[in-house]
């Protein structure tokens, strides 16, 4: 489970990036965080991975405090960013090998890497190809492959479909939905309102560090999420 309790982040320059955020993502759920640039979506994910420390409040993954026990917490979470950055001179398999070993899985065989890459839809020819030749979509798929092999219960995605072509984005979303059905708790920040409504069990809208709206997919049934979003964005 992914949980934020009164999570607050104020930077040294006084900027309040996150203000008492409360959210909870259960296993088998997708939580979509919407919001403009600078709304605090990435800050939230940064706090879960202890890239920054909160000013107050707690972030937990599978019940483990991400600030007090960051290394333990990170064992239970996988991260996919907007641009999955991999080592360009490594092949897809070498990247998988490195990141899964970092995640503590040292017993994987070459065939298991290949199987996962097939699973996420990477073409066979790409398995031993250097990643610097990959398109963004292929990189995102490899990012998901890393997350799958990590076998973490929680998945935190930071605008993962941004910049992908429609086909690649659709493939990617299919993968996310599949991971949800496997019981993963997924927190995804996104600008894609339509996809958010389509796949999320819960949608939150953030503005200037505050979660200003949170609705389940049942609440949103029959509602136009885009209109709601724009209405919240217009309110000063």
């Amino acid at each position, binding site marked *: 489970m992914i949980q934020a309790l009164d999570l607050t982040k104020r930077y040294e320059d006084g900027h309040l990036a996150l203000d008492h955020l409360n959210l909870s993502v259960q296993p088998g759920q997708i939580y979509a965080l919407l919001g403009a640039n600078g709304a605090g979506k990435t800050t939230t994910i940064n706090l879960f991975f202890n890239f920054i420390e909160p000013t107050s409040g707690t972030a937990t993954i599978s019940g483990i405090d991400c600030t007090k026990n960051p290394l333990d917490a990170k064992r239970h979470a996988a991260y996919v*960013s907007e641009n999955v*950055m*991999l080592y360009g001179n*490594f092949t897809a398999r070498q990247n998988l090998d490195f990141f899964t070993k970092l995640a503590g899985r040292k017993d994987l065989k070459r065939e298991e890497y290949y199987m996962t890459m097939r699973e996420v839809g990477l073409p066979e020819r790409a398995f031993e190809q250097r990643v610097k030749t990959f398109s963004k979509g292929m990189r995102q798929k490899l990012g998901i492959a*890393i997350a799958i092999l990590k076998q973490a219960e929680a998945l935190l995605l930071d605008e993962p479909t941004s910049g992908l072509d429609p086909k690649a984005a659709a493939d990617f979303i299919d993968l996310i939905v599949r991971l949800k059905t496997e019981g993963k708790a997924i927190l995804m920040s996104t600008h894609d309102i339509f996809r958010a409504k389509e796949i999320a069990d819960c949608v939150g809208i953030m503005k200037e560090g505050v979660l200003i709206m949170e609705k389940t997919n049942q609440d949103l049934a029959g509602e136009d999420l885009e209109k709601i979003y724009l209405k919240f964005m217009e309110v000063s």
Partner: protein
Amino acid sequence: MTGTIIRKEILENILSYRFPLFLIICVLLIVSAFYVNYIDYSKRLNDYNEQKRLSADAIAASRMWDVTSGSVALKAFRPPAPLSVVAYGFERSLPLYYEFQTDGFKAGETSVGDESILSILGRIDFVFILEMILSLIVLLFASDMVSGEKEMGTLRGTLSNSVPRHALLLGKLIGGSIAVWIPLLIAILLGMLLLDVSPYPLLTPPIPVNLLLILGSAFVFIFSYFTIGIAVSASTSRARTSLIAVFLTWIVLQLIIPKLTDVIASAVRPIRTETVVSMQKSLLLKSLDEERGKILGERYEHIFGAGAKISTEPGTPEERAQWDAFKKEVDERYKVRKARELAGIDEKYEKEKEAQRAIANSISLVSPSAAFSRLVTDLAGTGELAKLGYLDAVRRYSTTLQEQLYSHVDRTTLILPSGGTASMSSIDKMVDLHTLPAFTVSPQGAGEVFAADAGSLISLAFWLVGPFIVAFVRFLRYDVR
């Protein structure tokens, strides 16, 4: 965990375009430097053997008088240091020999004059390559290891796993250093292979041990530059900033500090030149000889009468006995005085030089390169210690020659009160020149080098540990966003 990161760093470096480039540079530079310096060493060794043989032939064909009068000089040759193929040091600026005279010794020519104007750019040897080229490349390698990964985004990917930051940095340091050392070791091994197939005494003690110690020092030196690079990288958030910062750091540590040390030391503690000191000694000897000549001349006329003919057997036996006793007492007195006053000049000059050297050494220790140069050239037998060791051996040999040869020759100039001067020369014991001990200069052992270069070792240790700590402290707080 650290092992995974080490393997990744090595693989990443090996797969990058920089690795083959670095390998080619290392092989080309190091192998050619070993080869060129080996050729030079062989030539100098032949010259040394030839000069020594010619000098021995000249001595064999001479009599004691030829040597003591200065028409044939006894010379102390220094053999070229075999490890000059690695660290050239003072090899060309040291005198090829010292020449002995009745009243001391003087330095012979050096081989600096044989070099072309291009030699002012510095001689290519392993030390030069490490200090001027590889240290910069290593810094550039290390400069993007943290900030570059931050910019690429891979640092976030890595740290999204349960990787402790200290393990990540340690892995980067070790893996990155190994990746740098692979091409270096390949080049060094090829260079040594080249030496091994040449008639070079590669396996003759103490060369293997000293060579290993030099390589160990080189490892510490390269590793210290690597940690400096990582410390800079962990202190900046952009690879470009890091690149500029490491370049400036290199200029200060590599070019400015070592070059400024001698200038600052000379300004703070100016000393006389060797030539001035040598002239002062000559003047002192001349003045003492004159003083002695006057005293003896006065007594000569007093005993034998004014205008007495100068001969080996003047006057009556009683007068001669009186003269001999007086002359012996004066000779002894002036011998002691001459030795004391010359030693005084030498001692004062040595103290001045030592003080200046201490200032220069202290300032230069701020730079790892200066510390490394000093240590490695001393281990190679071409540095400051070799220079001082040669001079010490010459001094000891000069004392031996004074005792065993020159003290048996008496050369007296009488300055007579009635006007005119007269010279008398005599030998109280004929010395067979073949019985004189041969001049030897033994290279300093590793223990002596480490004792003498404790400052350099401390400096290298500081540059190894200091940036390492800075890198850790900075990286533990590094903003990976």
